[in-house]
Protein backbone atom coordinates (compact mmCIF):
# COMPACT_ATOMS: atom_id res chain seq x y z
CA UNK A 1 0.00 0.00 0.00
CA UNK A 2 1.27 3.41 -0.86
CA UNK A 3 -0.59 6.41 0.41
CA UNK A 4 -0.26 10.12 0.79
CA UNK A 5 -0.38 11.48 4.29
CA UNK A 6 -3.15 13.92 3.53
CA UNK A 7 -5.42 11.33 1.98
CA UNK A 8 -5.29 8.72 4.67
CA UNK A 9 -7.95 7.48 7.01
CA UNK A 10 -5.12 7.13 9.55
CA UNK A 11 -4.67 10.88 9.63
CA UNK A 12 -8.09 12.48 9.38
CA UNK A 13 -8.62 16.22 9.30
CA UNK A 14 -9.02 17.86 12.68
CA UNK A 15 -6.87 18.31 15.73
CA UNK A 16 -4.10 16.05 16.98
CA UNK A 17 -2.69 16.62 20.42
CA UNK A 18 0.30 15.01 22.03
CA UNK A 19 1.88 15.86 25.35
CA UNK A 20 5.48 15.15 26.22
CA UNK A 21 4.83 13.49 29.54
CA UNK A 22 8.52 13.60 30.38
CA UNK A 23 8.22 17.35 30.51
CA UNK A 24 4.78 17.44 32.11
CA UNK A 25 4.89 18.39 35.79
CA UNK A 26 1.14 18.43 36.35
CA UNK A 27 0.72 22.18 36.60
CA UNK A 28 -2.79 21.44 35.30
CA UNK A 29 -3.05 24.68 33.36
CA UNK A 30 -4.33 22.68 30.38
CA UNK A 31 -7.08 21.20 32.55
CA UNK A 32 -8.37 24.65 33.43
CA UNK A 33 -8.12 25.88 29.85
CA UNK A 34 -9.75 22.86 28.24
CA UNK A 35 -11.32 20.71 30.95
CA UNK A 36 -13.08 18.44 28.51
CA UNK A 37 -9.79 17.37 26.96
CA UNK A 38 -7.26 17.32 29.78
CA UNK A 39 -7.50 16.06 33.33
CA UNK A 40 -5.16 15.12 36.15
CA UNK A 41 -5.84 11.96 38.11
CA UNK A 42 -4.13 11.31 41.42
CA UNK A 43 -1.33 13.79 42.05
CA UNK A 44 0.12 14.12 38.61
CA UNK A 45 -1.18 11.60 36.08
CA UNK A 46 -2.30 13.56 33.02
CA UNK A 47 -4.98 12.05 30.83
CA UNK A 48 -5.72 13.87 27.61
CA UNK A 49 -7.73 13.54 24.46
CA UNK A 50 -5.33 13.13 21.52
CA UNK A 51 -8.04 13.89 18.96
CA UNK A 52 -10.28 16.69 20.22
CA UNK A 53 -13.18 17.98 18.15
CA UNK A 54 -12.18 20.76 15.78
CA UNK A 55 -14.65 23.23 17.26
CA UNK A 56 -12.69 23.12 20.53
CA UNK A 57 -9.51 24.42 18.92
CA UNK A 58 -9.58 27.73 20.78
CA UNK A 59 -9.53 26.00 24.15
CA UNK A 60 -6.86 23.57 22.95
CA UNK A 61 -4.80 26.57 21.89
CA UNK A 62 -5.33 28.13 25.33
CA UNK A 63 -4.07 24.91 26.87
CA UNK A 64 -1.05 24.76 24.59
CA UNK A 65 0.15 28.30 25.24
CA UNK A 66 -0.57 28.16 28.97
CA UNK A 67 1.58 25.08 29.60
CA UNK A 68 4.43 26.27 31.84
CA UNK A 69 6.79 23.63 30.45
CA UNK A 70 5.51 23.87 26.86
CA UNK A 71 4.87 20.15 26.65
CA UNK A 72 1.77 20.26 24.46
CA UNK A 73 2.02 19.82 20.72
CA UNK A 74 -0.99 20.45 18.50
CA UNK A 75 -1.41 19.64 14.85
CA UNK A 76 -4.34 21.33 13.21
CA UNK A 77 -5.20 19.98 9.79
CA UNK A 78 -8.54 21.67 9.65
CA UNK A 79 -7.36 25.24 9.51
CA UNK A 80 -5.45 27.05 6.79
CA UNK A 81 -3.93 24.74 4.15
Amino acid at each position, binding site marked *: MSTRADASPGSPPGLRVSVDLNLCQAYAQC*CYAAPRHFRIEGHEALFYDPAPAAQDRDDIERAR*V*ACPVQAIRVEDRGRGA
Partner: protein
Amino acid sequence: MPDSSLLDQVKDFANRPNPYPVYAKLRQNPVSRQDDGTAEGTWVAATHGTIARLLQDPRVSSDTLPPADRPRTGNPLTDLIVKPLKDWMMDRHRVFIFRDPPDHDALRSAVMHQFSCARVQAMRARSDALVTDLLEEKREAREIDAVDDLAYPLPVTVICELFGVPREDEPKFHGWATQLATALEPDSLSNTEIRAKNSRTFDAIGGYMGDLIREKRRHPRDDMLSGLANHATPAGVKMGDYDLIATSILMLVAGHETTVNLITNGLLTLLRHPDELERLRQDPTRAPRLIEELLRYEPPVQFRTRRTLSAIDIAGVTVPEGADLVLLLAAGNRDESVFPDPDRFDPDRTGTRHLGFGGSLHYCVGAPLARFEAEAALTALARRLKAPRLIADPPPYRQGAALRGPEHLRVAIDGIA
Protein backbone atom coordinates in the same frame (compact mmCIF):
# COMPACT_ATOMS: atom_id res chain seq x y z
CA MET B 1 29.43 56.41 50.48
CA PRO B 2 29.25 53.60 47.94
CA ASP B 3 26.86 53.66 45.02
CA SER B 4 23.48 52.35 45.88
CA SER B 5 23.29 48.66 45.15
CA LEU B 6 21.39 47.49 42.11
CA LEU B 7 18.88 45.92 44.47
CA ASP B 8 18.31 49.34 46.00
CA GLN B 9 17.68 50.64 42.51
CA VAL B 10 15.11 47.89 41.98
CA LYS B 11 13.36 49.05 45.14
CA ASP B 12 13.74 52.73 44.26
CA PHE B 13 10.30 54.12 43.50
CA ALA B 14 11.79 56.36 40.80
CA ASN B 15 12.45 53.24 38.74
CA ARG B 16 8.95 51.85 39.06
CA PRO B 17 7.76 52.91 35.58
CA ASN B 18 10.72 51.18 33.95
CA PRO B 19 12.84 48.87 36.10
CA TYR B 20 14.11 46.93 33.09
CA PRO B 21 17.40 48.81 32.56
CA VAL B 22 18.31 48.01 36.17
CA TYR B 23 17.38 44.36 35.57
CA ALA B 24 19.63 44.33 32.49
CA LYS B 25 22.55 45.48 34.64
CA LEU B 26 21.76 42.78 37.17
CA ARG B 27 21.73 40.12 34.44
CA GLN B 28 25.40 40.85 33.72
CA ASN B 29 26.10 38.69 36.77
CA PRO B 30 23.53 35.89 36.69
CA VAL B 31 23.62 35.59 40.47
CA SER B 32 25.09 38.47 42.43
CA ARG B 33 25.47 39.53 46.03
CA GLN B 34 23.88 42.87 46.74
CA ASP B 35 24.54 44.98 49.81
CA ASP B 36 21.50 45.40 51.97
CA GLY B 37 23.16 46.69 55.10
CA THR B 38 23.51 43.23 56.62
CA ALA B 39 26.67 41.17 56.81
CA GLU B 40 25.24 38.43 54.64
CA GLY B 41 23.78 40.63 51.93
CA THR B 42 21.02 39.56 49.60
CA TRP B 43 21.67 37.36 46.61
CA VAL B 44 19.84 38.22 43.42
CA ALA B 45 19.26 35.80 40.53
CA ALA B 46 18.49 37.71 37.35
CA THR B 47 18.88 35.36 34.38
CA HIS B 48 16.26 32.93 33.14
CA GLY B 49 18.46 29.90 33.65
CA THR B 50 19.49 30.66 37.22
CA ILE B 51 15.97 31.62 38.29
CA ALA B 52 14.45 28.52 36.73
CA ARG B 53 17.07 26.36 38.46
CA LEU B 54 16.66 27.98 41.86
CA LEU B 55 12.85 27.80 41.69
CA GLN B 56 13.09 24.03 41.51
CA ASP B 57 16.12 23.53 43.73
CA PRO B 58 15.26 21.61 46.91
CA ARG B 59 17.92 23.54 48.81
CA VAL B 60 15.92 26.71 48.27
CA SER B 61 13.25 27.32 50.89
CA SER B 62 10.17 29.52 50.82
CA ASP B 63 10.24 29.73 54.59
CA THR B 64 11.55 33.29 54.54
CA LEU B 65 9.54 34.99 57.22
CA PRO B 66 11.41 35.90 60.38
CA PRO B 67 9.81 34.58 63.58
CA ALA B 68 6.62 36.39 64.50
CA ASP B 69 7.20 39.21 66.96
CA ARG B 70 3.99 40.98 67.71
CA PRO B 71 4.25 44.47 69.14
CA ARG B 72 4.28 44.74 72.91
CA THR B 73 1.38 46.45 74.57
CA GLY B 74 2.84 47.39 77.93
CA ASN B 75 0.34 45.15 79.66
CA PRO B 76 2.50 42.48 81.37
CA LEU B 77 -0.16 39.80 81.15
CA THR B 78 -0.51 40.30 77.40
CA ASP B 79 3.18 40.71 76.74
CA LEU B 80 4.37 37.74 78.79
CA ILE B 81 1.64 35.20 78.15
CA VAL B 82 -0.60 36.11 75.25
CA LYS B 83 2.11 37.50 72.97
CA PRO B 84 4.37 34.42 72.96
CA LEU B 85 1.37 32.20 72.41
CA LYS B 86 0.14 34.31 69.55
CA ASP B 87 3.62 34.52 68.05
CA TRP B 88 3.87 30.76 68.24
CA MET B 89 0.49 30.32 66.58
CA MET B 90 1.42 32.77 63.82
CA ASP B 91 4.63 30.86 63.12
CA ARG B 92 2.90 27.52 63.05
CA HIS B 93 0.14 28.65 60.75
CA ARG B 94 1.85 30.76 58.15
CA VAL B 95 0.31 31.05 54.73
CA PHE B 96 1.56 28.33 52.44
CA ILE B 97 3.48 30.61 50.10
CA PHE B 98 5.91 30.95 53.01
CA ARG B 99 6.09 27.23 53.74
CA ASP B 100 7.88 24.18 52.39
CA PRO B 101 6.71 20.61 51.83
CA PRO B 102 5.29 18.49 53.23
CA ASP B 103 3.10 21.13 55.02
CA HIS B 104 2.96 23.35 51.96
CA ASP B 105 1.81 20.49 49.77
CA ALA B 106 -0.99 19.46 52.09
CA LEU B 107 -2.36 22.99 52.47
CA ARG B 108 -2.06 23.73 48.80
CA SER B 109 -3.72 20.46 47.83
CA ALA B 110 -6.75 21.44 49.92
CA VAL B 111 -6.99 24.74 48.06
CA MET B 112 -6.49 23.10 44.67
CA HIS B 113 -9.21 20.61 45.45
CA GLN B 114 -11.66 23.46 45.91
CA PHE B 115 -10.19 25.46 43.03
CA SER B 116 -11.85 23.05 40.65
CA CYS B 117 -11.99 23.27 36.88
CA ALA B 118 -15.75 23.64 37.09
CA ARG B 119 -15.52 26.60 39.48
CA VAL B 120 -12.85 28.29 37.36
CA GLN B 121 -14.87 27.73 34.20
CA ALA B 122 -17.88 29.28 35.87
CA MET B 123 -15.78 32.33 36.71
CA ARG B 124 -14.58 32.49 33.13
CA ALA B 125 -18.13 33.02 31.93
CA ARG B 126 -18.75 35.34 34.87
CA SER B 127 -15.73 37.46 33.95
CA ASP B 128 -17.17 38.16 30.52
CA ALA B 129 -20.45 39.24 32.06
CA LEU B 130 -18.73 41.41 34.69
CA VAL B 131 -16.62 43.16 32.07
CA THR B 132 -19.75 43.91 30.07
CA ASP B 133 -21.44 45.38 33.15
CA LEU B 134 -18.43 47.43 34.17
CA LEU B 135 -18.01 48.93 30.71
CA GLU B 136 -21.72 49.60 30.52
CA GLU B 137 -21.40 51.87 33.53
CA LYS B 138 -18.89 54.00 31.61
CA ARG B 139 -20.87 54.10 28.40
CA GLU B 140 -21.19 57.86 28.30
CA ALA B 141 -17.71 58.57 29.59
CA ARG B 142 -14.97 60.24 27.56
CA GLU B 143 -12.31 59.10 29.98
CA ILE B 144 -11.85 55.95 32.01
CA ASP B 145 -9.44 54.92 34.72
CA ALA B 146 -8.67 51.39 33.67
CA VAL B 147 -7.70 50.51 37.25
CA ASP B 148 -10.71 51.84 39.16
CA ASP B 149 -13.24 51.15 36.44
CA LEU B 150 -12.24 47.64 35.42
CA ALA B 151 -8.88 46.14 36.37
CA TYR B 152 -9.53 46.37 40.12
CA PRO B 153 -13.26 45.61 40.44
CA LEU B 154 -13.15 42.63 38.07
CA PRO B 155 -10.71 40.40 39.98
CA VAL B 156 -12.06 41.51 43.32
CA THR B 157 -15.59 40.53 42.39
CA VAL B 158 -14.35 37.26 40.95
CA ILE B 159 -12.35 36.29 44.05
CA CYS B 160 -15.23 37.30 46.31
CA GLU B 161 -17.75 35.17 44.43
CA LEU B 162 -15.40 32.25 43.93
CA PHE B 163 -14.11 32.17 47.47
CA GLY B 164 -17.36 33.15 49.11
CA VAL B 165 -16.63 36.55 50.62
CA PRO B 166 -19.46 39.12 50.59
CA ARG B 167 -18.68 41.64 47.88
CA GLU B 168 -20.25 44.43 49.92
CA ASP B 169 -17.49 44.05 52.53
CA GLU B 170 -14.94 45.15 49.96
CA PRO B 171 -14.38 48.60 51.52
CA LYS B 172 -13.38 46.77 54.71
CA PHE B 173 -10.86 44.37 53.27
CA HIS B 174 -9.47 46.59 50.52
CA GLY B 175 -7.22 48.34 52.99
CA TRP B 176 -6.29 45.10 54.73
CA ALA B 177 -5.32 43.45 51.46
CA THR B 178 -3.17 46.38 50.36
CA GLN B 179 -1.45 46.47 53.73
CA LEU B 180 -0.76 42.72 53.86
CA ALA B 181 0.53 42.63 50.29
CA THR B 182 3.53 44.59 51.57
CA ALA B 183 4.71 41.30 53.08
CA LEU B 184 5.94 40.42 49.60
CA GLU B 185 8.10 43.54 49.44
CA PRO B 186 11.66 42.83 50.53
CA ASP B 187 12.07 45.56 53.15
CA SER B 188 8.86 44.83 54.96
CA LEU B 189 10.35 41.80 56.71
CA SER B 190 13.02 43.82 58.47
CA ASN B 191 10.94 46.91 59.10
CA THR B 192 9.42 46.70 62.59
CA GLU B 193 6.88 49.40 61.88
CA ILE B 194 5.51 47.60 58.82
CA ARG B 195 5.55 44.31 60.68
CA ALA B 196 3.61 45.77 63.59
CA LYS B 197 1.09 47.23 61.19
CA ASN B 198 0.78 43.91 59.32
CA SER B 199 0.32 42.13 62.59
CA ARG B 200 -2.59 44.39 63.58
CA THR B 201 -4.06 44.07 60.11
CA PHE B 202 -3.76 40.30 60.32
CA ASP B 203 -5.72 40.36 63.59
CA ALA B 204 -8.45 42.45 62.03
CA ILE B 205 -8.84 40.44 58.87
CA GLY B 206 -8.34 37.23 60.83
CA GLY B 207 -11.27 38.13 63.05
CA TYR B 208 -13.36 38.89 60.01
CA MET B 209 -12.41 35.59 58.36
CA GLY B 210 -13.01 33.62 61.55
CA ASP B 211 -16.55 34.94 61.67
CA LEU B 212 -17.04 34.16 58.01
CA ILE B 213 -15.76 30.60 58.45
CA ARG B 214 -18.21 30.01 61.30
CA GLU B 215 -20.94 31.34 59.06
CA LYS B 216 -19.87 28.93 56.28
CA ARG B 217 -20.05 26.04 58.73
CA ARG B 218 -23.59 26.98 59.75
CA HIS B 219 -24.77 27.78 56.24
CA PRO B 220 -22.53 26.19 53.62
CA ARG B 221 -22.77 27.62 50.13
CA ASP B 222 -21.26 26.55 46.84
CA ASP B 223 -17.99 28.43 47.25
CA MET B 224 -14.38 27.61 48.03
CA LEU B 225 -14.45 28.73 51.64
CA SER B 226 -17.50 26.60 52.41
CA GLY B 227 -15.71 23.68 50.79
CA LEU B 228 -12.52 24.23 52.75
CA ALA B 229 -14.39 24.76 56.02
CA ASN B 230 -16.54 21.66 55.71
CA HIS B 231 -14.82 19.04 53.56
CA ALA B 232 -11.55 17.16 53.48
CA THR B 233 -9.69 16.35 50.25
CA PRO B 234 -9.85 12.77 48.94
CA ALA B 235 -6.46 12.26 50.62
CA GLY B 236 -7.99 13.36 53.91
CA VAL B 237 -6.54 16.87 54.23
CA LYS B 238 -8.73 19.29 56.12
CA MET B 239 -7.36 22.54 57.44
CA GLY B 240 -7.68 23.59 61.02
CA ASP B 241 -9.13 27.02 61.74
CA TYR B 242 -5.84 28.88 61.96
CA ASP B 243 -4.53 27.49 58.68
CA LEU B 244 -7.87 28.16 57.08
CA ILE B 245 -7.86 31.78 58.23
CA ALA B 246 -4.32 32.26 56.95
CA THR B 247 -5.20 30.60 53.64
CA SER B 248 -8.34 32.70 53.25
CA ILE B 249 -6.35 35.85 53.78
CA LEU B 250 -3.84 34.72 51.19
CA MET B 251 -6.55 34.05 48.61
CA LEU B 252 -8.18 37.39 49.21
CA VAL B 253 -4.91 39.34 49.07
CA ALA B 254 -3.78 37.50 45.95
CA GLY B 255 -7.12 38.16 44.30
CA HIS B 256 -6.79 41.86 45.10
CA GLU B 257 -3.21 42.63 44.36
CA THR B 258 -2.04 40.73 41.29
CA THR B 259 -4.55 40.36 38.47
CA VAL B 260 -5.24 44.09 38.65
CA ASN B 261 -1.65 44.61 37.54
CA LEU B 262 -1.89 42.06 34.74
CA ILE B 263 -4.91 43.76 33.26
CA THR B 264 -3.59 47.26 33.72
CA ASN B 265 -0.13 46.40 32.41
CA GLY B 266 -1.90 44.71 29.53
CA LEU B 267 -3.90 47.73 28.49
CA LEU B 268 -0.89 50.00 28.98
CA THR B 269 1.24 47.74 26.78
CA LEU B 270 -1.45 47.55 24.11
CA LEU B 271 -1.83 51.32 24.07
CA ARG B 272 1.91 51.59 23.61
CA HIS B 273 1.68 49.06 20.76
CA PRO B 274 -1.36 50.20 18.77
CA ASP B 275 -0.69 47.66 16.02
CA GLU B 276 -1.11 44.84 18.54
CA LEU B 277 -4.23 46.45 19.94
CA GLU B 278 -5.69 46.55 16.44
CA ARG B 279 -4.72 42.94 15.77
CA LEU B 280 -6.38 41.84 18.98
CA ARG B 281 -9.48 43.81 18.05
CA GLN B 282 -9.60 42.07 14.67
CA ASP B 283 -8.81 38.62 16.03
CA PRO B 284 -9.65 37.94 19.67
CA THR B 285 -8.22 34.41 19.37
CA ARG B 286 -4.83 36.11 19.65
CA ALA B 287 -5.58 36.85 23.30
CA PRO B 288 -4.14 33.70 24.91
CA ARG B 289 -0.75 34.15 23.23
CA LEU B 290 -0.80 37.85 23.87
CA ILE B 291 -1.43 37.29 27.56
CA GLU B 292 1.46 34.83 27.84
CA GLU B 293 3.70 37.43 26.22
CA LEU B 294 2.37 40.01 28.66
CA LEU B 295 3.23 37.70 31.55
CA ARG B 296 6.74 37.65 30.17
CA TYR B 297 6.99 41.31 29.25
CA GLU B 298 5.28 42.99 32.23
CA PRO B 299 4.67 40.34 34.89
CA PRO B 300 2.44 41.47 37.79
CA VAL B 301 4.79 39.82 40.28
CA GLN B 302 8.28 41.02 39.46
CA PHE B 303 10.20 38.96 41.98
CA ARG B 304 9.88 36.55 44.88
CA THR B 305 12.15 35.95 47.80
CA ARG B 306 13.62 32.69 49.05
CA ARG B 307 16.25 31.46 51.52
CA THR B 308 18.98 28.85 51.06
CA LEU B 309 18.98 25.80 53.32
CA SER B 310 22.49 24.85 52.24
CA ALA B 311 25.21 26.44 50.14
CA ILE B 312 24.52 26.43 46.41
CA ASP B 313 27.10 26.66 43.65
CA ILE B 314 25.51 28.38 40.71
CA ALA B 315 26.77 30.41 37.76
CA GLY B 316 30.27 30.64 39.14
CA VAL B 317 29.35 31.84 42.63
CA THR B 318 28.56 30.11 45.88
CA VAL B 319 25.45 31.33 47.62
CA PRO B 320 26.03 30.53 51.29
CA GLU B 321 23.68 28.62 53.55
CA GLY B 322 20.99 30.77 55.13
CA ALA B 323 21.23 33.51 52.51
CA ASP B 324 18.31 35.63 51.40
CA LEU B 325 17.59 35.18 47.72
CA VAL B 326 15.66 37.40 45.36
CA LEU B 327 14.47 35.62 42.25
CA LEU B 328 13.98 38.44 39.76
CA LEU B 329 11.35 36.80 37.60
CA ALA B 330 10.79 39.90 35.49
CA ALA B 331 14.52 40.11 34.73
CA GLY B 332 14.66 36.46 33.68
CA ASN B 333 11.77 37.18 31.36
CA ARG B 334 13.93 39.70 29.51
CA ASP B 335 16.93 37.37 29.19
CA GLU B 336 18.03 37.58 25.59
CA SER B 337 19.67 34.17 25.63
CA VAL B 338 16.17 32.74 25.95
CA PHE B 339 14.02 35.45 24.38
CA PRO B 340 15.60 37.04 21.29
CA ASP B 341 15.05 40.79 21.17
CA PRO B 342 13.70 40.57 24.71
CA ASP B 343 12.54 44.15 25.07
CA ARG B 344 10.20 43.80 22.13
CA PHE B 345 6.58 42.97 22.91
CA ASP B 346 5.83 40.14 20.48
CA PRO B 347 2.82 37.90 21.07
CA ASP B 348 3.93 35.69 18.19
CA ARG B 349 6.90 34.30 20.08
CA THR B 350 6.71 30.53 20.24
CA GLY B 351 7.55 28.10 22.99
CA THR B 352 8.12 30.73 25.65
CA ARG B 353 8.65 29.43 29.13
CA HIS B 354 8.15 32.71 30.92
CA LEU B 355 8.51 33.05 34.65
CA GLY B 356 5.47 35.29 35.09
CA PHE B 357 3.70 32.86 37.41
CA GLY B 358 6.85 31.64 39.12
CA GLY B 359 7.44 27.93 38.92
CA SER B 360 7.70 24.54 40.57
CA LEU B 361 5.83 23.94 43.83
CA HIS B 362 4.77 27.55 44.31
CA TYR B 363 3.50 28.17 40.79
CA CYS B 364 0.69 30.71 41.05
CA VAL B 365 -2.51 29.00 42.19
CA GLY B 366 -4.68 31.63 40.55
CA ALA B 367 -2.94 31.52 37.16
CA PRO B 368 -5.90 30.12 35.20
CA LEU B 369 -8.23 32.65 36.75
CA ALA B 370 -5.85 35.50 35.95
CA ARG B 371 -5.64 34.34 32.35
CA PHE B 372 -9.41 34.20 31.90
CA GLU B 373 -9.95 37.56 33.58
CA ALA B 374 -7.24 39.20 31.50
CA GLU B 375 -8.67 37.67 28.34
CA ALA B 376 -12.16 38.89 29.16
CA ALA B 377 -10.93 42.39 30.00
CA LEU B 378 -8.40 42.91 27.23
CA THR B 379 -10.50 41.51 24.39
CA ALA B 380 -13.46 43.66 25.50
CA LEU B 381 -11.30 46.77 25.84
CA ALA B 382 -9.78 46.19 22.42
CA ARG B 383 -13.17 45.68 20.85
CA ARG B 384 -15.15 48.37 22.60
CA LEU B 385 -12.95 51.37 23.45
CA LYS B 386 -13.23 53.95 20.69
CA ALA B 387 -9.94 55.64 19.84
CA PRO B 388 -8.29 55.02 23.26
CA ARG B 389 -5.37 57.35 24.12
CA LEU B 390 -3.14 57.33 27.19
CA ILE B 391 -3.51 60.51 29.20
CA ALA B 392 -0.24 60.08 31.05
CA ASP B 393 2.66 57.93 29.96
CA PRO B 394 4.11 56.66 32.15
CA PRO B 395 1.11 56.49 34.43
CA PRO B 396 1.49 56.88 38.20
CA TYR B 397 2.63 53.64 39.84
CA ARG B 398 1.73 51.90 43.07
CA GLN B 399 4.41 51.63 45.73
CA GLY B 400 5.25 47.97 45.36
CA ALA B 401 8.40 46.83 43.60
CA ALA B 402 7.49 43.15 43.79
CA LEU B 403 3.78 43.57 43.06
CA ARG B 404 4.27 46.25 40.44
CA GLY B 405 1.63 48.07 38.46
CA PRO B 406 0.03 51.45 37.78
CA GLU B 407 -2.00 53.11 40.52
CA HIS B 408 -4.25 54.60 37.87
CA LEU B 409 -4.40 54.32 34.13
CA ARG B 410 -6.34 57.20 32.67
CA VAL B 411 -7.40 56.69 29.09
CA ALA B 412 -9.20 59.21 26.91
CA ILE B 413 -11.78 57.65 24.64
CA ASP B 414 -14.35 58.71 22.07
CA GLY B 415 -16.85 56.43 23.72
CA ILE B 416 -17.56 52.76 24.34
CA ALA B 417 -18.99 50.69 21.55
